[in-house]
């Protein structure tokens, strides 16, 4: 069933992505220098939206931009149109997988809550406009550094943290690659994604949703570890058993700021504020939660004080018994993007090769580039695995699986290896020794930073 769903290519997907590519190409060269080809891309985009609620705004925005007027309003419409196209691609891809897995997904029904006014968004908008006008090819050191002030102002406001971290990471990528004119290849789709998402979050009226408090038992499936130079995050995928007997697919995240010198297993040391969740990950235990806020998109907003350690639970047993009947949440509007698809799946009975699983005639690629440096899971273990708990992802036209845990044979002994096994420090002797050496980085930095204070 799953194999067939992964093989089929939904109708209209290629056309939608072609429109997105056209817009991305215009952003590569800059909206100030639209030639005939790029102008045609924008016209095609406007034509595709004819008959939709966005028809009027998109036609006006593309017309004005081709004529040479680029305002914040027009750019917001472009970003919205791009997100709508990718949202449709996301929905159709996910619907195919849901049907194959027999997964029930709750439709999106959350009421929008207006965002708090008074956030310092204008600086971010003006930098994003500057980027769009210059195009990625026109980004030099000065343009790349232009976002710094906006980021500083946003970081000071906790309610704007999501946008601040996004802009910070985006600006860091531009700074690291500036001047972009000499760069090949340019990550065109990625930067357009980041630009569009940031621009939508920069709109004053961008609505949020409200979380509701939930009680129950969290059964952990695995942890997806994200790292960029200044942030480390462990996103835990799990099943929430509520008192009424329902089982929901949820995620819980813990994140911490760091400096780029701290990498690998040492990054776990930065998550010192989450001892309970880390212990649950390392020890494969359940967590009892009470009054924990759950967003309509299925994200638990983690508060250690509202959690208590539970009994042991094997993630593979959890997946075999409960994953099939778990109810999934719909993605919030802004997260409807193919790259945000991360569906927990349990794969068994495949033939593993170095970089793919053969699911009886269909080859499913294994995304080894997403295996984290902070965990014990290696490509070799995945290639020798007999069962895999992973996240199904879609990227650049193909499906792949990102392993979160595998069952494999080491010698003649069956073992399970999980990405978050080292949440409390490496369990393997050699890695523990290496981490002890590298981990002093955190202590050295703390001690030296203390010396910076004036006496």
């Amino acid at each position, binding site marked *: 069933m799953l194999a067939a769903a*992964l*093989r089929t*290519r939904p109708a209209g997907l290629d056309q939608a992505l072609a429109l997105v*590519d056209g817009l991305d190409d215009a952003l590569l060269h800059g909206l100030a220098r639209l030639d005939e080809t790029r102008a045609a891309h924008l016209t095609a985009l406007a034509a595709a939206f004819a008959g939709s609620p966005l028809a009027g705004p998109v036609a006006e925005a593309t017309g004005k931009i081709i004529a040479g007027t680029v305002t914040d309003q027009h750019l917001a419409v472009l970003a919205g149109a791009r997100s709508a196209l990718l949202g449709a691609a996301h929905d159709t891809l996910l619907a195919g997988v849901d049907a194959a897995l027999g997964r029930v997904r709750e439709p999106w029904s959350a009421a929008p809550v207006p965002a708090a006014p008074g956030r310092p968004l204008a600086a971010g908008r003006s930098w994003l406009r500057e980027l769009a006008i210059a195009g990625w090819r026109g980004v030099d*050191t000065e343009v790349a*550094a232009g976002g*710094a002030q906006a980021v500083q102002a946003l970081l000071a406001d906790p309610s704007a943290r999501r946008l601040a971290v996004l802009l910070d990471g985006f600006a*860091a*990528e531009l*700074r*690291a*690659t500036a001047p972009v004119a000499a760069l090949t*290849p*340019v*990550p*065109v*789709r*990625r930067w357009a*994604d980041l630009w569009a998402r940031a621009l939508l979050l920069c709109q004053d009226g961008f609505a949020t949703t409200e979380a509701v408090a939930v009680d129950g038992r969290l059964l952990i499936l695995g942890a997806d570890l994200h*790292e*960029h*130079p200044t942030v480390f995050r462990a996103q835990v995928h799990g099943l929430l058993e509520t008192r009424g007997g329902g089982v929901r697919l949820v995620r819980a995240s813990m994140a911490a700021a760091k*400096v*780029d*010198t701290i*990498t*690998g297993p040492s990054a776990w040391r930065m998550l010192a504020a989450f001892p309970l969740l880390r212990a649950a990950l390392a020890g494969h235990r359940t967590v009892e939660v009470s009054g924990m806020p759950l967003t309509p998109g299925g994200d638990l907003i983690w508060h250690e004080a509202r959690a208590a350690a539970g009994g042991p639970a094997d993630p593979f047993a959890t997946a075999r018994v409960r994953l099939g009947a778990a109810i999934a949440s719909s993605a919030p509007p802004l997260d409807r*993007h*193919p*790259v945000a698809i991360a569906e927990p799946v349990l794969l068994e009975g495949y033939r593993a090769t170095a970089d793919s699983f053969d699911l009886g005639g*269909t*080859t499913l690629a294994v995304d080894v*580039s*997403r295996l984290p*440096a902070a965990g014990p899971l290696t490509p070799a273990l995945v290639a020798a695995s007999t069962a895999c708990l992973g996240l199904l992802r879609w*990227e*650049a*036209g*193909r*499906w792949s699986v990102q392993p979160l845990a595998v069952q494999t044979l080491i010698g003649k002994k069956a073992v399970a290896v999980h990405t978050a096994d080292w949440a409390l420090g490496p369990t393997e002797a050699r890695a523990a020794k290496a981490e002890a050496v*590298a981990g*002093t*980085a955190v202590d*050295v*930095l703390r001690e*030296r*930073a203390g*010396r*910076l*204070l*004036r*006496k």
Partner: protein
Amino acid sequence: MTEDEIVYERRSAAPVIAPVRPRKLAKVPFVELAEGRLQGVVSSGSDASRVYVSSITAGDHGLSCTTNNNRPCGGLGPARPCNHIGALIDAAVAQYGLDRVTRYLKACPRASRTSATPCTRRRRRGTPPRCSAASCATWPIWSSRRPPTPCPSCSGSRPPGR
């Protein structure tokens, strides 16, 4: 499923920044390329409680080095970088790689000055001769094929290098 090669331009999760390389932190605990400068914190060689805040601006290569109490570094002269600046460059190259550091500072190491990639900047008159000793802390990235010349920063006190 089509077996097309994954195109970098069409990837939303394309990797852009290479992870930094691990390095020893005791001498230079912190270094970054930010705000138009290569800047960082350098431990004092003599006093454990003192740190220096050193920086080099991108483009015009202005040097600055002061202690945490805002006293100027004694080793930094108008045409002479101090050892802290040298250690800072060493650490930056170890962490980010030579290419990224020189690109950010708009500098080019002498080795890369070929006719294919001409350097746009000329050396200022009055700058001291560069040291060819690999162990020299001040000019470690400027290697020359010529035999070692006296280096203002490491003459006498440092070994002559490789």
